[in-house]
């Protein structure tokens, strides 16, 4: 039994060991550190991905703390991929701007570890520890450019907001423990609702929802998002907007699947309101943005609204739609922010929309990556975003949330305007946008891979959808 237990935490060990080794290399091998560190980081993230993809530990999990099922493994693979892509995108970016030290790479790996813990936790304590590890690492990553005031301001804002939200979350977990007496997530949330524990359960869950809502930036907990996304270095924004949101949403999905019918009946209307508000406010505010990173930030807020809408259908088989969309969303946002990273000049970030004028003709491939990601975010075929939106709305309508789906569809129609506006700037006008230095074969390769995957999933979604529905059905029993 013990053996299979250790197999469960193989990805975790690989990431933690990688992080520690990188810090050691930074401390003791000062001269050759810059060559070794990226390789180490890449290797340990790849190792985590491979071990979670191919090694099925089976068994009940690790000491009742970590889930070892397909659900956690699937997300562990996604986080490993996100980390690998972020490493690739930030390799040149960090070196040119002088923050490619051991702390950047090491902390990135710890953040990845935090994500895997959050998505795989079956125990409140592990969930909390994972989330705190993730948050602490992100504070450091956002402030990676030490001399840049915008970067520091973003980190500070995220830190203050994160601490307050973390406080709510901790208090919520404490209340939940107090009324159910269980630290095990599924046992606690699945316990039947009685007159005695009803108030406590709902209070605890609302507090937890504030923490989660902050992390996945649901309206009205979203206000930090554009500031932080704009201030952080572009590869970190890519990491932040995909990894951290997907991890917390995976946890939220687990909570929803575990929760008792009666509890769910209370929470569903709240989710309804949050989803509607998020879709509307996210998309409408994005219309007025003039900076690409802020625009993408509001877009990512709206995207979470769509997923939350499908989460309502979770008791009617909507979970696989949610998981599929999370995977697709990770690809799209990673690609979009990654494109910003590879299109930015050496001295400053290319952020103002006007800076992208005619970029489609100067850098056809990199601008093409951005264009396909925007197409996909807008949900236009033949990209993966179209299929993703299709399964989301299908799930919501099947479960009877027709009005909410209608709100979502209208919001999505409005959103097409700002996505296509960027496309117009990229391709319809010519202007002086300047040539960007090469970012190395790796960055371009990662971009191509994202592009190919988005198109492939848009044309042949069936294999992934089938795999996901198998994973989800194993989780709900």
């Amino acid at each position, binding site marked *: 039994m013990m053996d299979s237990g250790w197999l469960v935490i193989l990805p975790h060990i690989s990431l933690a060991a990688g992080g520690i080794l990188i810090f050691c290399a930074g401390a003791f091998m000062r001269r050759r550190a810059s060559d070794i560190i990226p390789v180490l980081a890449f290797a340990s993230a790849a190792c985590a991905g491979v071990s979670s993809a191919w090694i099925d530990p089976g068994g009940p999990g690790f000491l009742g703390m970590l889930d070892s099922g397909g659900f956690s493994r699937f997300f562990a693979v996604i986080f490993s991929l996100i980390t690998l892509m972020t490493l690739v995108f930030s390799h040149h970016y960090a070196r040119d701007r002088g923050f490619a030290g051991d702390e950047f790479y090491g902390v990135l790996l710890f953040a990845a570890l935090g994500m895997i813990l959050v998505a795989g936790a079956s125990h409140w304590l592990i969930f909390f520890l994972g989330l705190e590890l993730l948050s602490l690492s992100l504070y450091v990553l956002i402030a990676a450019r030490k001399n840049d005031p915008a970067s520091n301001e973003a980190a500070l*804002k995220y830190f*203050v*907001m994160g601490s*307050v*939200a973390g406080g*709510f979350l901790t208090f919520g977990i404490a209340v939940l423990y107090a009324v159910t007496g269980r630290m095990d997530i599924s046992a606690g949330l699945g316990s039947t609702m009685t007159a005695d524990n*009803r*108030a406590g359960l*709902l*209070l605890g869950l*609302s*507090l937890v*929802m*504030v923490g989660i*809502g*902050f992390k996945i930036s649901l309206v*009205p*907990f*979203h*206000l*930090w998002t*554009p*500031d932080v996304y704009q201030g952080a270095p572009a590869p970190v924004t890519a990491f932040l907007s995909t990894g951290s949101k997907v991890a917390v949403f995976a946890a939220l999905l687990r909570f929803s699947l575990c929760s008792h019918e009666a509890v769910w009946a*209370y929470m569903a*209307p*709240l989710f309804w*309101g949050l989803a509607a508000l998020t879709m509307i*406010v996210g998309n*409408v*505010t*994005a*219309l*007025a*943005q003039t900076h690409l990173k802020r625009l993408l930030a509001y877009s990512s807020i709206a995207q979470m609204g769509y997923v939350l809408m499908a989460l309502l259908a979770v008791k009617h088989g909507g979970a696989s739609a949610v998981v599929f969309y999370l995977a697709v969303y990770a690809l799209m946002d990673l690609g979009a922010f990654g494109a910003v990273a590879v299109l930015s000049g050496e001295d400053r970030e290319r952020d103002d929309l006007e800076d992208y004028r005619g970029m489609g003709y100067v850098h056809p491939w990199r601008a093409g990556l951005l264009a396909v990601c925007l197409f996909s975010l807008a949900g236009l075929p033949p990209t993966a975003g179209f*299929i993703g939106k*299709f399964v989301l709305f*299908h799930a919501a309508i099947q479960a009877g949330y027709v009005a909410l789906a209608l709100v979502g569809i209208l919001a999505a129609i*409005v959103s097409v*305007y700002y996505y296509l506006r960027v496309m117009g700037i990229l391709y319809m006008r010519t202007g002086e946008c300047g040539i960007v230095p090469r970012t190395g074969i790796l960055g371009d390769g990662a971009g191509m891979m994202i592009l190919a995957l988005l198109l492939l999933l848009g044309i*042949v*979604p*069936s*294999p992934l*959808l*089938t795999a996901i529905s198998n994973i989800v059905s194993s989780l709900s029993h």
Partner: protein
Amino acid sequence: MRTILFLLVFLPLAGALFHILAGRHVSRRVVEIVACSSVAGSFFMALSALLALKQGPLRVIFLRWFEAGDFHAAMDVYYDPLSAVMALMVTFVSALIHVYSVGYMRDDEDYARFFFYLNLFVFCMLVITLADDLVFLFLGWEGVGFCSYALIGFWYRDEANAAAGRKAFLLTRLGDVAFGVALGLVFVLFNRLSISHVTTHATELTAASATVLGLLLLWAAVGKSAQLPLVVWLPDAMAGPTPVSALIHAATMVTAGVYLLMRLFPVVLMSEAALSAIAVVGVLSAFYAACAALAQKDIKRVLAYSTISQLGYMFLAVGAGDVIGSMSFLLSHAFYKALLFLAAGCVIRALHEEHDIFRMGGLRGRLPAVFFLFLAGVLSLGAIPGTGGFINKDRILVAVFSHPHGAFKILWLAAVATSFLTTLYAFRLLFVVFLGRSGQSVEQQEIHPIPAVMTRTLWPLAFLALFAGFMNLPAVWGGEEWLAGFLGGVPGTVPHLHISPGIEWFVAMSDGVVALAAAALAFVLYGPVESTRWRAVFIPAQTVRDFFLSGFYLDRLYQAVLARPYMELARILWLKVDEGALDGCIAASSRTFPLLGSVLRLWTTGRISTYLLGLLVGLTVMLGLLVIRFYAG
């Protein structure tokens, strides 16, 4: 078997992908080799699959594509004798034409684009041929339409070519609409979109729904196969390179329409009305196009009208309930028509892009190799007794003549009359181009040397054009009807017609006599000997000739009755409705939303206190709502 079928379908696609991704970075020779070998490989796969087909039809799923509710779409094939024979023909003719194109396109700089479309076309055509899922089939159906459009307008710098491509695309789209509706109807009726499922459950259809479905399929087929009333695009499609005309507009794509009817024949069989409609459309198109072909001056337009006419025979055979007759004729036609087109391509190339047959003439001595190839094609097209064209056409005529319904006797008469015209225009073409007094302009010109690869690839086609009919020689003449026996397992087919020998002899004799008479008349009128007297008797007045030459003025008719009112309507909708009314609404909403956006934007003040307030307000509202529900419920 699974691997063989996979390679059969996807090898040409791999070739196409290679051309589009790497075609511009490798030498011309590499592109040519990849193009030809991918299709040739596909041909060998088709051959081995045919030889391995022992235990009846076979359904292989390559990929489950997408699912939504009851709706499934998959990339799969349904491999039965019908599709096996069709796939073999498609890959064989395609492979030869690819090799021929290497010679034909030798001086063209845009070879990578050309072979990309050509390979992609073969892939799409194989999808039509083999697909089981109708959605997958539709993908191929639209794909061949697209490739046809792109290849007709291949020399797009000339405005006329681009216009011809557009015309072909738009007119075939009219048929595709019906196919789309038919797909929806099939899903409603059967709850599945698989051909194998539909054909085995076709007997459950009611007569009314079978008729509607049959007519929709007919309309779809009419668009693709250029039958009346959607004929006008095919003659214009001759603007494309000649190998394209041979492959797409003679041997393969245009037969996709009639092939669809054969593939779904059990559905059509359920409705008398649909069958009669198919037969009537076929005969009318055959007769119409034969008349038009008689008056054409452009060598390729003669062949184009001839294709329409011969496709009409295939429709007639399907309408008479004889799928095997139709399929045999389709194969035979593919061989001799591809042969004729490619030989015509040699002539055109040799005479520096000359298309007018009356400026050719006397080429027999100067292009002997091409002459004998062309002769083989003309003999088969003209259905001279003994050739493949004759044997296969004879089967169709027998099936029509012996059809229990009395009205089919009239169709038979019309078909025989068309047969006369067919032989007449076929030999007219031969005599004028090769035997006639040499035209003035050609006399002075040097013959442009033709690459040997262009003529040598035609020998197998010539052989098959003349002798492929013996695969299906009727029992009366001591044949075994091998092909009919092979196709016998396909649902809805009648392998042997079981007609009394008397009728069979009568039909064959009448057809043979008619063909020989027409050939003789052609010799008198257009042969090497000047015969003003006979010409004055038989050749009609100028107005009639113009009427035929223009294809009965159908183009002008459509322009006046359909296109112009449509353009007028479109103009009104554009200026008044769209720009006037709709744009106003959209402009108003496009002002409102960004305004709303800039108001909401003010919420993001950049100050942490506002953000924290948001957190608190959110929590308060959530708790408030929960409290209300707590006490209410």
